[in-house]
C-alpha cells in the first residue's frame, strides 16, 4: 500500500515539479556570483556551439591561413580585411577563431567524458549498493584503489599507452573519473534502499532493474548532479593539462591546452597573446562551471537547508 505509506509525497508529485524548479532557481539566485557564473557557462557553451558562425576564419582550413601574417600582436589588420583582435599564432592563425574552435574541442571532450563517466559510474554504483556483500566490497575496494592514485598520473600513463586523439582522451578521462560517480551513487543508494517505498516496490514484485532505475535513481540525482558539474570542470582542466604536456590532443585539432602549449615557447620572447588569451578562455570556462557546481551543492544539500 504505497499510498498509505507515503501520502504526502504521492499527492504532491503532480503539483510539485514547477514549484520545486522555481524554489531551486530562487535559492540559486541568492548568490550573485553564482548567477554571473551561470551566465559565464551559457556564454561559453554558446561560443563553442556557434564557433563556425562567430569566427572570422576557419583555423583548420589551411588555405585561409597566411603564414606571412604570423605572430601579429592583438589589434593588427589581417590581409583579408578583418582585425585580429587577439593577434595571430606562429602559423598565422587568428587567435580569436582558434580559441572558439579550441573551446569547442575542450568542452566537447569534457562534457562527453563527464556524461559517459556518469553513466558508467552510476550503473556500477547502483549495482554495488543493490548487490551488497562481497560484490559490493570488491567494487568499492577497486574504487578506493583507483581514487588513491592522482588523476593526472593515471591519465598520463593511460595516454602514454593509448596514444593521441580525442576518443582516447575521453576514454582516459572516463577511466579516471567513473569512481567518483560510483562512490557518490552508492552512498545515496544505500540510504534509499532502506526506505519504505523500496520495500513497497519489492512487495509489488518489481524487478531489480525497475526498482534501481525508476525508483532509487531519481532520488540519487541531486548529489550526482553536483558531482557531475564539478567533475566536468575537472575533466576540462585535466584535458588542458594533458594537452599542455603533450600527450593530449594532436596538433591538428588544437584544444585550449594545446594552444597554450603552442604559445609557451613564444611567451619567453614577450609574445604573450598566444598563450594568455586561450588561458583566459579556459579559466572562464572552468571557474564558472565550478562556481555553479558549488552553489548547486549548497542548495541541494539537505543538511544546509533552512
Amino acid at each position, binding site marked *: 500500500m504505497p499510498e498509505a505509506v507515503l501520502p504526502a509525497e504521492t499527492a504532491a508529485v503532480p503539483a510539485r515539479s514547477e514549484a520545486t524548479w522555481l524554489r531551486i532557481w530562487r535559492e540559486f539566485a541568492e548568490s550573485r556570483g553564482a548567477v554571473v557564473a551561470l551566465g559565464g557557462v551559457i556564454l561559453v557553451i554558446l561560443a563553442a556551439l556557434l564557433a563556425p558562425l562567430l569566427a572570422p576564419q576557419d583555423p583548420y582550413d589551411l588555405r585561409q591561413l597566411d603564414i606571412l601574417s604570423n605572430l601579429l600582436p592583438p589589434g593588427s589588420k589581417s590581409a583579408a580585411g578583418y582585425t585580429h583582435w587577439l593577434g595571430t599564432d606562429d602559423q598565422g592563425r587568428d587567435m580569436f577563431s582558434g580559441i572558439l574552435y579550441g573551446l569547442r574541442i575542450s568542452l566537447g571532450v569534457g562534457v562527453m567524458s563527464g556524461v559517459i563517466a556518469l553513466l558508467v559510474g552510476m550503473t556500477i554504483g547502483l549495482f554495488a549498493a543493490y548487490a551488497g556483500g562481497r560484490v559490493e566490497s570488491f567494487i568499492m575496494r577497486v574504487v578506493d584503489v583507483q581514487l588513491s592514485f592522482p588523476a593526472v598520473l593515471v591519465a598520463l600513463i593511460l595516454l602514454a599507452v593509448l596514444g593521441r586523439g580525442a576518443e582516447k582522451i575521453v576514454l582516459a578521462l572516463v577511466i579516471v573519473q567513473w569512481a567518483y560517480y560510483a562512490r557518490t551513487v552508492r552512498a545515496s543508494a544505500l540510504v534509499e534502499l532502506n526506505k519504505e517505498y523500496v520495500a513497497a516496490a519489492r512487495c509489488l514484485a518489481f524487478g531489480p532493474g525497475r526498482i534501481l532505475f525508476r525508483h532509487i535513481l531519481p532520488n540519487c540525482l541531486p548529489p550526482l548532479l553536483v558531482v557531475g558539474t564539478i567533475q566536468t570542470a575537472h575533466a576540462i582542466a585535466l584535458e588542458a593539462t594533458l594537452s599542455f604536456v603533450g600527450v593530449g590532443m594532436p596538433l591538428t585539432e588544437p584544444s585550449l591546452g594545446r594552444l597554450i602549449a603552442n604559445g*609557451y615557447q613564444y611567451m*619567453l620572447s614577450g609574445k604573450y597573446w598566444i598563450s594568455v588569451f586561450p588561458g583566459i578562455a579556459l579559466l572562464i570556462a572552468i571557474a564558472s562551471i565550478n562556481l555553479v557546481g558549488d552553489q548547486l551543492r549548497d542548495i541541494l544539500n539537505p543538511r544546509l537547508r533552512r
Partner: protein
Amino acid sequence: MTVFIIRRLMQSVVVLFAMSAIVFFGVYVVGNPVEILIAPDADEAERARAMKALGLDRPVWAQYLAFVENALGVDLGKSFVFGISAIELILQRMPATFELVIVSFVIAIGLGIPLGMYAGYKPNSAGAKTIMAGSILGFSLPTFWVGLMLILTFAVSATEWQTWLGVPPALQFQLPAGGRGPEGSVLGVQSSLFTWSGLGHLFLPALNLALFKLALVIRLTRAGMRETMLLDYVKYARAKGLSMRRVVLVHVLKNIMIPIVTVLGLELGSQIAFAVVTETVFAWPGMGKLIIDSIDKLDRPVIVAYLLVIVVLFIIINLVVDVLYSILDPRVRLAAKA
C-alpha cells in the same frame, strides 16, 4: 600495531605486483620502440642486432619474467635513450623533485594554517572572505596556467612593470623562468637549496606547485577551526582564565592538526605526481620531466620504472601516515592498545 603494519605491508606487495603486471603489459603492448630508436635506413641485420641488444626479440611474457626477476634485484632494465639503468636515472632525478615538493609543502603549510585559522576565527570579516575567494581560485585554476602567468609576471616582464611602478633599476628583481640552480653542499647533503641562485630558481616552481595545496590547507584549517571553537573544552579553557591567544594557538591548534596531517600526508604522493606538470612548465630537471620526455620517446623501461617507484612511494607514504595518525590522536592509540 605490529600486526596492523604487517597486514598493510602484505596488501601493498599484492598491489605492487598487480600494478607492475598492468603497467608492463600496457606499456609493452603499444608501439614499437625499434621504429623510434633505430634509424629508418638501417638494414635488416642492423635491426635484428639492435632488437637483440634491447631484448625486444623475445616474447612479451619472457620479457616480463626477466623484468620481475630483475626488479627483485632492483634492476628495472636500461633506458633505451640514455643507455644507463632506468632506476639509476630516476634516482638521479629524484632529489630535484623532492626539493620542489618539500619546499612547496613548507609554503602551503606555512601560509595555509595561519590564513585558515584567521578565516575560521573571524569568518565574517572582509579578510576571511578574501582568503576564501582566493582559495576557490587556487582550486579551479589549472596548475600549468598559473605557472605560465608566474613566469610572465616575474620573469619575462618583471622589469617592465617595476619600471612602470617607479622602482629604481638597482632594486628591481627578475626571477629565472626555468631550470634548476647550482647545487651547494651542507653537511654532505647536495641541494640547490643551499645557494642563492638555486633558491631563486626554486621559488616560482615551488610556489606554483604549492597553490593547490595552499587552498586545501586553508579550507581544512578553517573548517576545523570553526568546528573546534564551539566545543566545550574551549569554553572551559576560557572560563579557567586562559587568554584567547593561548587557547587558539595551543589547545585548538593541536586538535585541528590531526585532520590536516592526515590529508597532507596522503597528498604528499599526489604532490609528487602533480610535479610532472610544474616540472614541464619550468623545465625543472626532476622525475616528472623525465617521465614526460620518456613518454614522448616511448622509452619503456623508464616509464615502467617511474611507475613502480611512484607506487612504492605511495605505499610507504600511506603507511607512515597511518602510523603518524595513531601517534597524533590519542583516541586511535588507546583503541589500538585495548
